[in-house]
């Protein structure tokens, strides 16, 4: 294997690990929301336990990329790709953390009867999940058009977030005994909205990778 082939091999391996990490994080988010909707404490505990693997994989990706930068002095697209891999890994690791946070809220709510807002929360999750899944596809295909479309979906998430928070605040007046659950569900909404923002960040990183210039999609 030539030096360049070895470099390409390492670069591809880092990218494959990143895709694995992304899938794990998105699955954790889905599992956490499903656990919340079905009030499944065991599933929530599994999400918390599974996050260790996500964190470990992110560290492995970081170590691999840093070693490549140190040993190969990459430039131009190679260098941008390595830096973008580290940043996207960090975004995805964060999504994994939100899944853990949602799992913890699920455990706190326990078996208390859930408010109807769970329907909208599931809608938010569906949007965030679509964004995250598609941004990873766009990343693999280096498709900036798709990345732009994903960033536009974020508006829907933000709008829905506003609606759900309003609804939760109103239901506080009607259900004073459920203030604690209302707060917890508001946090869950926030985690979902943040997850979608991370998908937008990744779309921006993809633009940087492909075009070498910075774009702001979070407006």
């Amino acid at each position, binding site marked *: 294997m030539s030096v*360049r082939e070895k470099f390409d091999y390492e670069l591809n391996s880092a990218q494959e690990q990143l895709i694995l990490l992304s899938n794990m994080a998105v699955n954790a988010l889905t599992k956490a929301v499903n656990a919340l909707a079905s009030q499944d404490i065991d599933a929530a505990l599994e999400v918390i336990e599974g996050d260790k693997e996500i964190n470990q994989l992110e560290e492995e990706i970081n170590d691999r990329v840093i070693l490549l930068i140190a040993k190969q002095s990459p430039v131009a697209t190679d260098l941008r790709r390595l830096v973008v891999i580290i940043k996207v890994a960090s975004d995805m690791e964060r999504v994994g953390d939100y899944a853990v946070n949602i799992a913890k809220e699920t455990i706190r709510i326990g078996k208390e009867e859930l408010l109807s807002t769970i329907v909208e929360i599931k809608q938010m999750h569906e949007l965030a999940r679509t964004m995250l899944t598609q941004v990873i596809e766009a990343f693999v295909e280096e498709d900036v058009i798709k990345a732009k479309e994903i960033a536009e979906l974020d508006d829907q998430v933000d709008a829905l977030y506003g609606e759900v928070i309003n609804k939760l605040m109103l239901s506080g007046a009607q259900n004073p005994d459920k203030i604690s659950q209302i707060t917890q569900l508001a946090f869950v909404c926030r985690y979902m909205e943040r997850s979608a923002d991370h998908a937008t960040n990744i779309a921006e990183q993809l633009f940087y990778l492909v075009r070498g210039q910075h774009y702001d999609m979070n407006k």
Partner: protein
Amino acid sequence: MTTIKTAIKKKEPVKQEEKKSVYLTKQLNLWYGDNHALKNIDLDIKENEVTAIIGPSGCGKSTYIKTLNRMVELVPTVKTSGQILYRDRNIFDKDYGVEELRTRVGMVFQKPNPFPKSIYDNIAYGPRIHGIKNKKILNEIVEKSLRGAAIWEEVKDRLDENAYSLSGGQQQRICIARALAIEPDVILMDEPTSALDPISTLKIEELVQELKKDYSIIIVTHNMQQAARISDKTAFFLNGEVIEYDDTDTIFSNPSDKRTEDYISGRFG
């Protein structure tokens, strides 16, 4: 909560003030006999900057740098067309004396090539040719040049020793000091560190950074990381053509030509 997403905005870089040109090359062509070694070169080299010339072996980078002080004319079969304006004057003009040009443009080569003379005489050689005989003035020039080349402290107590007694890295700095002694405007460097160890290389690289305050430096290098570290502008040569010429930051982070990217990423060359 709802936000309106307009077209994605690209962040624009901040523009810098234009510097004066020291060398302006216009449509330069050069042939060694039938071999068309430089093809339609257009380059605008700015003063008080370090301009790096990179490219694979045989791409014309050394030929180009040797054309800048007309050293290339030592090859009998050489033919040129086009213009190289040095400080707005075409160096190929019939009334432009080559000695006059080389007084303004010093050169440092790949292998250190001090004269087989004392350290002192190596540095004083140029000024003496230009008629400086006053010992006091010569002493001042020698000290200033050796200081300028960051080697004064190492040789000040042994100026009478033969320059060959120095290490390769020290000899190269003596050659730089020799170039500085005639107070040039431009220093051409043709792979000045390729025969040196990493520590000596680092010293020369630091020196180049210092020298650009007072001189314009054009450096041919095979070491891409060196070009990235020390130059302000980089020109990528391939098969006698300038493929890309831009800020070094741009060349190494986001080159516009795929051939540049392939070369600097080690995909060929």
